């Protein structure tokens, strides 16, 4: 327990008597890279929203470094948890303004930006290789670049825990790998929801498989990505092999196009 940064205890969340999340419990250790997987509508986004204190659990609690997140202010949580949501359709601001917003929880009322802040924004953009775009409009960037800007915002926000909701959505395979590699290099504790199971296998230390609002199973990629589990949950024909590079499971799907 002592090295856990996040403990989720019997979390339930319902909207208008409809139970979206049912008795979810898991722990995240410091430095872990945790993947949340599951089919569409399994409750991945709802779970993450509860974790970053946007939705309030109906019952159960979420402890961040041992303290209930709902006994702390939104600002206190924002200093510890940085969030990268699915990229918004449009943000009518310059790239550096978007990154600068990461400082919001660290600033008192009236407090302006100083040289140190500008340096932080510059460095964060450097970490995602976008310094040259600092003065461009956010909307003119490609999807992958926009995701990197939002990661730079999370870097500036300095949370020890980084939560990302499907950061690889709508990205081509190059950017999918690129984004997850960069996040892994940050060396923070990460909880990320992913659709691509092979990507989840390659990058995550721990996987949580959600099914109809419940944890179907959790563990290392080899424990979760088993042929019988995946074929049942996703209703697909699948063969699991070992990936030659990282020795973790790799899924081969059967498309039924030839005999």
């Amino acid at each position, binding site marked *: 327990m002592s090295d856990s940064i996040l403990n989720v205890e019997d979390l339930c969340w319902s909207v208008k008597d409809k139970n979206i999340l049912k008795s979810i419990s898991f722990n995240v250790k410091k430095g872990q890279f945790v993947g949340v997987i599951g089919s569409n509508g399994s409750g991945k986004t709802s779970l993450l929203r509860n974790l*970053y204190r946007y939705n309030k659990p109906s019952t159960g609690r979420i402890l961040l470094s041992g303290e209930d997140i709902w006994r702390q*202010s*939104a600002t206190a949580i924002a200093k510890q948890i940085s969030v990268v949501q699915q990229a*918004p359709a449009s943000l009518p601001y310059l790239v550096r*303004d978007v990154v600068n*917003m*990461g*400082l919001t*929880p660290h600033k008192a009322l009236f407090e302006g930006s100083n040289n140190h802040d500008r340096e932080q924004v510059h460095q964060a953009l450097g970490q995602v290789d976008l310094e040259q775009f600092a003065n461009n409009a956010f909307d003119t960037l490609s999807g992958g670049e926009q995701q990197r800007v939002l990661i730079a915002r999370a870097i500036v926000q300095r949370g020890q825990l980084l939560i990302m909701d499907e950061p690889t959505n709508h990205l081509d395979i190059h950017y999918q790998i690129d984004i997850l590699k960069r996040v892994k290099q940050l060396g923070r504790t990460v909880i990320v929801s992913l659709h691509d199971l092979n990507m989840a296998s390659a990058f995550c230390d721990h996987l949580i498989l959600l099914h109809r609002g419940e944890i179907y199973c959790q563990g290392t990629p080899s424990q979760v990505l088993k042929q019988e589990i995946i074929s049942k949950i996703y209703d697909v024909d699948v063969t699991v092999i070992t990936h030659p590079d990282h020795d973790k499971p790799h899924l081969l799907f059967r498309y039924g196009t030839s005999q």
Partner: protein
Amino acid sequence: MSLRQHIFLLIALSIITLLSMVFALSHGAITISYMDVLRSIIPAISTQTVDPLMQQIIVELRLPRIILALLAGAGLAVSGAILQLVTRNPLADPYLFGISAGASFGAVTMLTVLSHLSILLLPIGAFIGGLLAVLLVVGIAGRSAYNQIERMLLAGVASSFMFSAASSAMLYHSDPQAAASILFWTLGSFAQAQWSTLIAPAAVILFSVVVFFAFSRQVMAISTGDESATTLGVNVASVRLLMLVISSLICAVIVASAGGIAFVGLLIPHLIRLVFGQQHLNNYLLIALCGGLFMIYIDLIARTLIENQEIPLGIITSAIGSVFFLFILQQRSKRS
């Protein structure tokens, strides 16, 4: 825009505003020379004395009027920008939330029920009516962020219509003279400006701009979405309500002292978007200066366009506003 360019722009706009004030002071029903204008305001600059009548026109009539125009323009523009940011609705302005209708209702009540006291009590009635409308909207909008924007807008529209219906009913049963003075008042005018009536709007607008600066980061975060702002540590529902209440206060105090001046809260933020870009919508000094400058010239037009007669401000701002929005429409269709 770099910080230095930004400061340069603000200083340049301030100088233009001061020059425009002198220009507006000199023109009117009678034209007074610039030298006499300066001598009347700052007697120390010259040993020559100014005709006392001229001095009185400058100091007692035109100067408070122009300062009220500056304050009203600045206040309406800034509150429009704030409301557009926190509701993420580019068509939001303080009048959309029923304040103007509430204020008119208060004024009509004063005029028809207590007609002999009306001159003194009309602004107070208008202010109370405006506050009533705000309380109604805030009460309905509630303190949870869920659907708060929709609830705010619909409550605003509902209270607008309700107060308009009540005012119309009262006007219909009142005498024609009261109806005419109400009409003039709802269209807006700075003619009633006096030094003593400037204190309330000046205090409210200065206080509000200070609060807006304090919450600048939070407002900016809300403009990117409720969920995103929450993850940045912003208490979205309360900040948005606070911004609505303060914008409404500004609007109520302006409506009380100058009547309903339409379109300015909508027009100036759009002008800022067009010229400088959306990221300057939280640059409150820039917006306040542009709004004030705009209003000084609107008032000048109102005083001088037709000789010996004043045109209500609302007619001019609405006419300019409609042309401006057609212009924006044309620009957009050209771009796409």
